[in-house]
């Protein structure tokens, strides 16, 4: 209900021209901002009907007050955005049938009707009054309903939002074995509530603003006061308010409009649909940007190492997590370099292979008609086609298509001698490796694979290494909201290495990541490493004493 901050304008009666409305046919848009409601219900309704002309989903419902039939009421809302049963039970029925008689025998008149409606009649939790027509219009469009009472230049805004929404489901993009299953949905309030449920603290601030001249999309900026660096919040808000665009349909719009190095392939703004990840990011001192209409929440700043981190890492044992993270690093390298390494070694550096392997590959390649580069490139492209088709094609035909693709590309191509088995293995391994890290984290590597293959095919390992150097130089130059993208590895932040390509146990990660959490560096007490209790039993040899102490 608090989303009007940008447009809210306290227009007292003094500075508004009372008669504007009557002549208000011309440039409605500008005038409407300062328009006030009229005490005359019919006039108000006429204006609203004019505003919502040709909007068939807007409902105008006029009815009479329960005991005083001369008092007319009108309810305006958008069909489908409001909770209809709530409206009919708690507004219509309450006001037109069941409003109780005042206990002190006060007679309900036109003059005090509004007071009665608000204080006794409406059984709705969130109620707000406005005298501004424009505010009333925006309330209607956001899903609230407004109640107009004849004789009062005030609209009562009922918080009766309720629309068809997807229920909270398991995360589709970042699943875990151990850890919470829930993921964000398309409704902003649900999303912020999911985070609020994890961080029950008044310092969790969720500031709102509206972006999109036409779509009027609600945006929420969340951070934890006292942990976050205030400059970062200011910077985020400043970058957000810079945005002047007709519509925001997904957080990706915002990501591209606020990110550093806009042409880089590497994501310097993180996104996730997992509340626990957002909560963890907030606790480390990051800022989260919620966008209404999408389950993807942006987090800034974003580091490269986050591509190999999953929420599960913090719930599973530290040693196992470290192993898996090393595995993910390896997978990223495979996804990036394996095809080019294969091309380079097969067509330039055969001496790098063990003799039996060389002979086995040579045997496979004997009948293949293309140079290894062409072959690998064709297979990579074929795989990208299958992958893209797999995302787009309808569920019903998915299985049939994937079988055909697997058969044609895998089996038949090798049997026909068009492709060497080793190439299939390389391409398949590359494809699998690119899925080990989460989807968006590997996009850059999927793309960079191709130029690297060109370099490897033209200059061998020399070209491959030159390409990798260029990539590393580029990554080192990236910044995400003032923080180096490759931190904590480049620049080296020794303390933060505890949670980078390995993870230390929780009792050892005493400080927040330095570059985002330096404002409030300590996150836990030190010396929490579990150890056997120091009992008198150990000193004196009395077993019972130890038990008593515990």
């Amino acid at each position, binding site marked *: 209900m608090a989303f009007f901050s940008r447009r809210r304008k306290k227009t007292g009666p003094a500075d508004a021209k009372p008669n504007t409305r009557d002549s208000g046919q011309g440039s409605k848009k500008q005038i409407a901002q300062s328009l006030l409601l009229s005490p005359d219900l019919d006039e108000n309704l006429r204006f609203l009907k004019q505003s919502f002309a040709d909007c068939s989903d807007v409902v105008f419902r006029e009815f009479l007050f329960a005991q005083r039939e001369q008092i007319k009421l009108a309810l305006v809302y958008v069909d489908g955005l409001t909770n209809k049963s709530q409206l009919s039970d708690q507004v219509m029925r309450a006001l037109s049938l069941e409003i109780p008689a005042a206990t002190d025998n006060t007679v309900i008149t036109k003059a005090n009707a509004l007071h009665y409606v608000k204080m006794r009649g409406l059984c709705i939790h969130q109620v707000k009054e406005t005298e501004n027509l424009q505010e009333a219009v925006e309330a209607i469009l956001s899903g609230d309903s407004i109640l107009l009472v004849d004789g009062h230049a005030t609209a009562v805004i009922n918080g009766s939002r309720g629309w068809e929404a997807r229920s909270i489901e398991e995360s589709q993009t970042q699943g875990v074995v151990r850890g919470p299953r829930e993921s964000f949905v398309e409704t902003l309030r649900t999303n912020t509530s999911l985070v609020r449920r994890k961080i029950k603290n008044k310092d969790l601030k969720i500031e709102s603003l509206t972006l999109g001249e036409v779509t009027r999309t609600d945006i929420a900026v969340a951070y934890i006061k006292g942990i976050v660096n205030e400059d970062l919040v200011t910077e985020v808000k400043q970058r957000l308010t810079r945005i002047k665009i007709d519509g925001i349909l997904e957080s990706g719009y915002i990501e591209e409009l606020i990110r550093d190095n806009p042409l880089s392939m590497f994501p310097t703004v993180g996104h996730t649909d997992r509340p626990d990840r957002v909560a963890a990011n907030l606790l480390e001192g990051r800022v989260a940007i919620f966008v209404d209409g999408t389950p993807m929440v942006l987090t800034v700043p974003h580091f490269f190492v986050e591509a190999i981190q999953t929420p599960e890492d913090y719930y599973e044992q530290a040693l196992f997590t470290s192993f898996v993270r090393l595995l993910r690093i390896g997978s990223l390298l495979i996804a990036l370099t394996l095809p080019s390494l294969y091309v380079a070694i097969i067509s330039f550096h055969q001496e790098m292979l063990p003799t039996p392997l060389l002979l086995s590959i*040579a045997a*496979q390649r004997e009948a293949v008609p293309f140079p290894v580069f062409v072959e690998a490139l064709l297979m990579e492209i074929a795989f990208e086609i299958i992958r893209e088709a797999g995302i787009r094609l309808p569920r019903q035909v998915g299985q049939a298509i994937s079988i055909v693709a697997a058969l044609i590309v895998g089996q038949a191509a090798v049997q026909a001698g068009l492709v060497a088995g080793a190439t299939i293995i390389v391409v398949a391994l590359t494809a699998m490796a690119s899925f080990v890290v989460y989807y968006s984290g590997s996009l850059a590597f999927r793309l960079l694979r191709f130029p690297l293959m060109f370099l490897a095919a033209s200059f061998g390992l020399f070209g491959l290494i030159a390409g990798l150097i260029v990539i590393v130089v580029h990554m080192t130059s990236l910044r995400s909201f003032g923080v180096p993208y490759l931190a904590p590895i480049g620049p080296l932040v020794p303390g933060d290495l505890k949670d980078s390509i390995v993870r230390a146990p929780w009792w050892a990660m005493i400080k927040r990541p330095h570059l985002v959490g330096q404002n409030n560096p300590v996150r836990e007490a030190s010396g929490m490493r579990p150890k056997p209790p120091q009992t008198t039993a150990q000193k004196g040899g009395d077993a019972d004493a130890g038990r008593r102490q515990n």
Partner: protein
Amino acid sequence: MRKKIAILLLLFFLIGLLGGCWSRREITEVAIIMGTGVDWTADDRIRLTVQIAKPGDFGAGGEAGAGGKEPPAWVVWAEGKTIEEAERYLAMKVPRDIYWGHSVILVLGEEMAKKGTGMVTNFFHRSRGPRETMWFMVTRGEAKDILETHSELAKTSAQAAGFLTRMETSYAVQSREFAEMLASKGVQPVVTGVEVKETGKAHGPGQENPPVEKEVKLSGVAVFKEDKLIKWLDEHETRGLLWLKGEVKKGAVTVPSPGEPEKEVSIKIRRSSTKIVPEYDGENLWFNVMINVEGDMVEQQSREDLAKPEKIKALESAMAGEIKARAAEALEKAQREYGVDIFGFGDAFHRKYKKEWRELKNRWDEEFSRADVNIAVEAHVREIGLLTTRASTPEE
């Protein structure tokens, strides 16, 4: 500005085309040489024989190479005045790029080795292709025959010969090590010897006069003076050579059982080390060689209890005596008969007497032949095992 950037980008991408695929060599365009042999022919030319893998016959899938017993390699040779010339003639017969990078062995025919290895190794050490880790060996016949043999276990005979050498049962020399020995005045080169052995196994059923299978077999070491082969050491003497060089890594020593001399006991060598200490007083030169060896008793034909300390002592002295005899045999042959220092005594001397070495190095082999050598062997038997006499042979 934007136009300029576009042109620069375009030029940048065109650089790739200018370079082309520099030194690219597709795997299907190379002839992978598995083994190399060099012979000195009767008409005084160098014959270069190579064994080229036939990749199609190496099929891992199974459908390829299933028919017949045709070896998956092609042996082809060419002659020339130098190795390079022979290689160029070879290139006229081989329709692919000759690729040395995976050659496992470099084998020299006896005639070639006698003529001098300098004519051979120069090419292999200079050019970029061949590895310095190729196993270097000399055959008692023609190198070509070695490459034409067959192997039951390995795919090609070159690999078979390479694996045999690597097992370290004989003295193994890599191409680089040979060059090192050649460069040093304090040691004369020795090289693994191989020979062709007829297994007597018929090549295929149903054939009249079936050709007999031939396999490679290790056969002692070839002794060089400078780069020329002079003599051979047989397997027995090779063991002595290994003891003196401190190269014994595996093997066993068999001695008579202390209490029952007609029965034998085998001791498997766990580790050994050899130390050569030269002594020189300006006139007399002598060497103290200390061989330290540890082993486990692994086989016993006798029925006595060897776990007793005095029996172990006896076993150890018998073992020491056996090793000393072996070493002395090889030493005798090298010193008295061949007159070459193949053990590296000269290097040991060089390390201790730098000034004196300068005078002696040019006549080192003569000095070596006259030197006295004391061999001391310290042997330890570490484990006797738990199998006692009763468990291995039932009591009468």
